[in-house]
């Protein structure tokens, strides 16, 4: 297996090869940087690449491993970080001209944990400006393209991280998820996307109370390796969940206009889960769509508050799309924000009462597969594509996007499972189970 093949396999395989000293971190990092140089001019996964810092970190990892000081599964492994998460000494731009030159003096906690685990950060990944707007060609770096079909765009604000992982430019990446920004691109690009429980990866580094730092990885074991590091948990084996019951909000799913391929994929996913012994229980979740609205009101208000200073002082440096999304949040009243918090509490209460003996809720990730469909005028800003993902941001429950099918145009389709707080291990086990069954890991 060549270094390039290894880089494109899995984080766990890379980690094993480094630990056994079959390959050096420097060789892998050079291969990752070569991939970036070769592919990124077309794919736009990165805002900033850090060859010097990455090669220094790789050399340090090689030295420590040679001395018998292996730190764990991320030691010497090339990873990437979304460019709205602070990285010490490496510019963090939010893909905005208003912050083009900001170099943080300290790491966000999840990044600090990656560095302590010996991970090699190859660069900062692309996002739509402030992770709150639609991608715009006038952004600091133009929007990422989908590596499975570069004629198409990439969905979700963590799309740069997803593209970097899917195209083999790194072995895993951090993203942020305020309404589906990790799970949507993961689904579209055939990756595992984990939005952990709010607070699991430390609140420090998340931008606000609905965003959470999470993971984009090629398989469940890779995601588990990264999750244990950023959430500072002990490692766990991915066993098979037994006697599992999952709730399916059938009426709410039927009410949404699913793309045909998504509907077919979801039906097939339910059949696969059933064949694997998972008991599926149909439930009614009438507050699902209002919980999505609550998330969008919270995100709108929080983003307006966070970036209002830029609107006052650097108005023209903020891109036109981001500016309008940020301005719109300024028409909300304190009462609206409070109502959103109360609706989130209502949804969590009803959800908890409804799913009773079920371990979680299973839904499609997105009603559509292409970014172009997700951004139909009049639908995107209503949160149509985040119908199933955003409700779980309002309440902070963990949720995962699991790759299961291949749709039209080479695009991937995933299934979402959300669970009660701190049930990440269960979500990763389910992902592992489906991967083994469907053989999509490679």
């Amino acid at each position, binding site marked *: 297996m060549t270094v390039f093949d290894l880089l494109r396999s899995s984080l766990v395989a890379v980690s094993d090869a480094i630990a056994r000293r079959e390959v050096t971190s420097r060789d892998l990092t050079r291969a990752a940087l070569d991939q970036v140089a070769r592919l990124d001019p077309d794919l736009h996964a990165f805002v900033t690449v850090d060859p010097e810092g990455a090669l220094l970190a790789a050399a340090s990892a090689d030295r420590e491993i040679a001395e018998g000081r292996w730190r764990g599964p991320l030691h010497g492994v090339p990873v990437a970080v979304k460019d709205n998460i602070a990285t010490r000494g490496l510019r963090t731009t939010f893909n905005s001209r208003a912050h083009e030159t900001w170099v943080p003096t300290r790491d966000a906690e999840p990044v600090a944990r990656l560095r302590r685990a010996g991970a090699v950060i190859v660069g900062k990944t692309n996002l739509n400006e402030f992770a709150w707007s639609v991608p715009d060609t006038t952004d600091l770096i133009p929007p990422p393209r989908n590596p499975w079909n570069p004629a198409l765009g990439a969905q979700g604000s963590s799309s740069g991280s997803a593209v970097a992982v899917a195209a083999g430019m790194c072995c895993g990446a951090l993203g942020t998820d305020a309404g589906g920004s990790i799970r949507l691109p993961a689904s579209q690009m055939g990756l595992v996307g984990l939005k952990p429980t709010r607070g699991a990866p430390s609140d420090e580094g998340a931008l606000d109370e609905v965003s959470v730092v999470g993971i984009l990885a090629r398989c469940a074991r890779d995601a588990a390796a990264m999750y244990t590091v950023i959430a500072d948990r002990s490692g766990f084996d991915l066993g098979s969940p037994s006697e599992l019951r999952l709730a399916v909000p059938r009426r709410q799913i039927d009410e949404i206009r699913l793309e045909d391929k998504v509907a077919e994929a979801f039906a097939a996913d339910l059949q696969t889960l059933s064949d694997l012994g998972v008991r599926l229980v149909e439930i009614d979740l009438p507050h699902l769509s209002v919980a999505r609205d609550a998330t*969008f009101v919270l995100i709108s208000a929080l983003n307006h508050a966070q970036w209002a200073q830029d609107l006052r002082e650097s108005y023209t440096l903020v891109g036109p799309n981001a500016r*309008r999304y940020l301005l719109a949040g300024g*028409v*909300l009243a304190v009462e609206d924000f409070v109502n959103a918090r*109360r609706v989130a509490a209502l949804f969590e209460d009803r959800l908890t009462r409804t799913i009773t003996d079920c371990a979680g809720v299973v839904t499609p990730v997105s009603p559509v597969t292409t970014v172009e469909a997700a951004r139909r005028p009049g639908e995107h800003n209503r949160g149509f594509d985040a119908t199933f993902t955003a409700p779980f941001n309002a309440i902070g429950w963990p949720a995962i996007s699991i790759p299961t099918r291949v749709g039209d145009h080479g695009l991937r389709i995933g299934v979402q499972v959300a669970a009660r707080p701190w049930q990440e291990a269960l979500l990763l086990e389910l992902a592992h189970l489906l991967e083994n069954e469907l053989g999509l890991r490679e």
Partner: protein
Amino acid sequence: VLHVTPDWLSKPLTSEQVDLLLRQRGIIASAEDLLVLGDLVTVIREQARSLLRALKESPAAGEPGSP
């Protein structure tokens, strides 16, 4: 100055009112942005209205100590 009244969400905001609200926050929006902002403002206020409806249908929800 615009005040939040009980019927705050029931009437559409004019672009002049949006401008005034933003100015109250110290933000001077461009005429072009105000012109194209209408849809986003309408949507976010529709979402805020849907929250109000849901809470009216479940008045105890979200209150501390509610069953």
